[in-house]
């Protein structure tokens, strides 16, 4: 068109004016560490696998999940999910039900028969794993994926360790555990049962193992001295829970007292109820707030009729009754005796006061150090003995399945590096994506989905699983509650809110990049990024 001079201009001609020169701060896309990932003892990339799940690609989600943890169906049931405690969504409404989605994915994988992809190449190295508990299984899995030949020697008759002998069936059905272990074995991992290793060096030499990972767990119950009469029945929690796996169920009587305040105490009390006890009373010397057991487990136990006696210690056990002393907390929160006593009826007393490790297999291993009843390990999980690594409950840490799985993975990587003559160094961690980094406005109100629970009446009589999985729609919903803290989820906000059209959209999965020719550095993209994936950095002049 013939234009009037100066008054009429050709469309879009301002592209010649590069306003990027105005900028004093430049936006940059960053990755920040989501708090769930940071909190996960198993080192799962929770946000990563949730992002597949929220798109409905459950197999991809499961594969992403199992890059770090081979036991999602188990973990989805027994993990105490510190990820959810850390979850930023908790500050908006409620944490994302990560555990529930993991549960869903694990079950779906089993139902669909998804298998791990075997490694492309094999090494010629052999690794011994002692113990087929979560740490051992995890280490074996990761080592197998790295191409190493792995043999697990397990003292017991079945795999799972504490997952089998410590966690009641109503929390973890055994078919689930068996199926996930079988999938690990499918990678070529050999498990030898009833093979208690009593001399590590001998066993390694005998088998020609190049390295060993020890994860025998902590199966020896701690005892407390309690004056007791003759006919009294005092058992320990490990014994009770383990015997649940056998043919003969433990005889606990009508009134069962459990002594202790941890999750194991709850497990025992709930098991007792299921075995027909009319009363299951937990005696704990401190208050509910101080109790180490998880709140949700306590809630479930209370629902099932488990009773609690706070601020009490058992002073004497007699036939059919026990004597407890009332306690009071001092300023430091430590329980002090009051001198007041009370008698409770009890057919049996189960002690759930913690467990110790059986360290006998380590006798004579040079360089190995024991401290506070556990094996000292370095940051790479290696003990003082070269090539001997340890993890799980026998290493210093919190004793949970998830920690154990994390130990196994970490150790596997370190063993792999060791076998290649190097040292494993994990990559640098991103800065934490704390809640302040987010712009929570953009997230819709979406309360957490609660997994369906078994009716109370049936819980007291059966060992059916109490907490059931989500169905697909609820799992999808839950996955989509993830805020994607610290990592771009392609919401297009930066692309939309830039007043200067200086954000280039690269297409699905590709994210965005800045057009610094036009970006004036206003910072709107950074402040309106929901997940804190944009940082403003001063321009160098």
């Amino acid at each position, binding site marked *: 068109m013939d234009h009037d001079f100066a008054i009429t201009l050709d469309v879009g001609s301002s592209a010649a004016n590069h*306003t990027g020169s105005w900028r004093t701060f430049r936006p940059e896309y960053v990755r920040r560490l989501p708090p769930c990932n940071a909190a996960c003892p198993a080192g799962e990339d929770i946000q990563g696998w949730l992002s597949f799940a929220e798109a409905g690609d459950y197999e991809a989600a499961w594969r992403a999940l199992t890059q770090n943890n081979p036991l999602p169906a188990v973990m989805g049931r027994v993990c105490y999910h510190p990820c959810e405690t850390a979850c930023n969504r908790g500050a908006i409404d409620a944490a994302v039900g990560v555990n529930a989605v993991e549960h869903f994915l694990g079950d779906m994988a089993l139902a669909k028969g998804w298998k791990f992809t075997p490694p492309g190449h094999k090494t010629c190295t052999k690794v011994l794993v002692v113990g087929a508990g979560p740490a051992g299984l995890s280490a074996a899995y990761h080592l197998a994926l790295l191409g190493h030949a792995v043999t697990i020697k397990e003292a017991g008759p079945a795999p799972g360790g504490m997952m089998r002998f410590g966690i009641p069936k109503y929390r973890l059905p055994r078919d689930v555990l068996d199926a996930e272990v079988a999938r690990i074995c499918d990678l070529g991992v050999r498990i030898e049962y009833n093979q208690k290793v009593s001399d590590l060096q001998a066993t390694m030499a005998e088998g020609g193992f190049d390295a060993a990972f020890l994860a025998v767990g902590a199966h020896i119950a701690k005892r407390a001295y309690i004056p007791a009469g003759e006919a009294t029945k005092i058992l320990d929690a490990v014994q009770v829970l383990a015997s649940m796996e056998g043919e003969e169920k433990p005889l606990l009587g009508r009134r069962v007292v459990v002594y202790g305040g941890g999750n194991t105490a709850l497990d025992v009390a709930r098991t007792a109820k299921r075995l027909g006890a009319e009363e299951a009373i937990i005696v704990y010397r401190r208050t509910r707030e101080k109790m180490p057991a998880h709140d949700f487990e306590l809630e479930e136990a209370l629902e099932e009729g488990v009773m609690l006696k706070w601020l009490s210690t058992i002073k004497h056990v007699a036939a059919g009754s026990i004597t407890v002393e009332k306690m009071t907390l001092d300023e430091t929160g430590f329980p002090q005796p009051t001198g007041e006593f009370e008698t409770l009826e009890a057919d049996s007393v189960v002690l759930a006061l913690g467990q110790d490790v059986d360290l006998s297999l380590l006798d004579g291993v040079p360089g190995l150090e024991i401290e506070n009843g556990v094996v000292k390990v370095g940051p790479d999980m290696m003990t003082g003995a070269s090539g001997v690594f340890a993890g799980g409950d026998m290493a210093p840490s919190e004793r949970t399945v998830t920690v154990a799985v994390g130990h196994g993975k970490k150790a596997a990587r370190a063993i792999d590096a060791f076998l290649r003559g190097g040292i494993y160094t994990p990559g640098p961690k991103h800065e934490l994506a704390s809640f302040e980094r987010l712009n929570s406005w953009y997230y819709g109100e979406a309360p957490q989905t609660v997994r369906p629970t078994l009716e109370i009446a049936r819980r007291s009589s059966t060992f059916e699983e109490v907490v059931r999985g989500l169905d697909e729609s609820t799992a999808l919903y839950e996955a989509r509650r993830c805020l994607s803290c610290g990592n771009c989820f392609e919401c297009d906000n930066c692309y939309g809110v830039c007043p200067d059209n200086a954000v280039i959209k690269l297409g699905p999965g590709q994210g965005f990049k800045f057009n610094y020719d036009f970006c004036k550095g206003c910072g709107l993209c950074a402040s309106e990024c929901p997940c804190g994936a944009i940082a403003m950095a001063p321009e160098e002049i």
Partner: protein
Amino acid sequence: MTDSTHAQNPAPSLKYYQKGTFTVGNRLVADAERAVQSSPERSNALTSGHRACQGCGEALGARYAIDAAMRATGNDMIAVNATGCLEVFTTPYPETSWQLPWLHSLFGNAAAVATGVAAAMRVKGKKTRVIAQGGDGGTTDIGFQCLSGMFERNDDVLYICYDNEGYMNTGVQRSSATPPAARTATTPALGPEPGNVFGTGKFVPKIAVAHNIPYVATATVADLHDLERKVIKAMGIHGARYIQINVPCPLGWGAPSSDTIKLARLAVECGLYPIFEAEHGRITAARKIRRRIPVRDYLILQKRYAHLFRNGEDDPRVARLQAICDAHIADYGLLGDDEA
């Protein structure tokens, strides 16, 4: 997985993007359900290289609105622009940032010029749609007569007012859209009543409603989906339509350039800027406040209100502004059921 023996958990309604309910786009939803602004094919009616200040709310609002209108009309539209920041920063010779047929005539006549364009289209039997746009000065003050005339004749024009609450182009002077107590160059923070007067107010959207025109709406740059929906809805209607968009001005309001959208959001959440729709003289919908805040939280972020918080305690006029918010909340029913 459902089992009759299990307690029924009320199935939560599955939203497709809890993660990004209010974001511009989302990889999970169909293209058609995403905001126009999320599309790589958006028209960018107002393209790069314009000379708006960093974080300009008006630049943003204009692109949002015009892109949406262009989507709605299949790019068959013409825009008329009043004099003001938007005009100056987009079309300084020899460069224009517009990518649609665009005409600037004067400060106070955008509505009338648009009427003329629409008349020409009608007489020529063309379906081309017409938008007039301007700032609050060009709309609520100097352009008010033309605006009212356009409304009253029910001319086929969508008028969009980008309300940044003052004459920003000329260096931040007071307009009839400047809120009470706000400091501007002509209402300095001096004397016993610093800042703008507590007048009787002149909320042009309600005046537009009084014309019984087919459609009136308010919107902000903080709620893109709402804004786009309203523009697209407006373009589906013939006759006179009016949309007033709150567009914070970092320069005039005294706020960081990165706070533009946040301020628009807070202006709504405190109740100071009611977001509603009206059709044919009746208010038909109001956008509920999602996370209510006291007006103080909104004011304190802006230097134009700094004098209200100077001596360690709040000026009594903060309470007067809160009373205005409260009245808006009551009048427009801005609280949801659970908030009310």
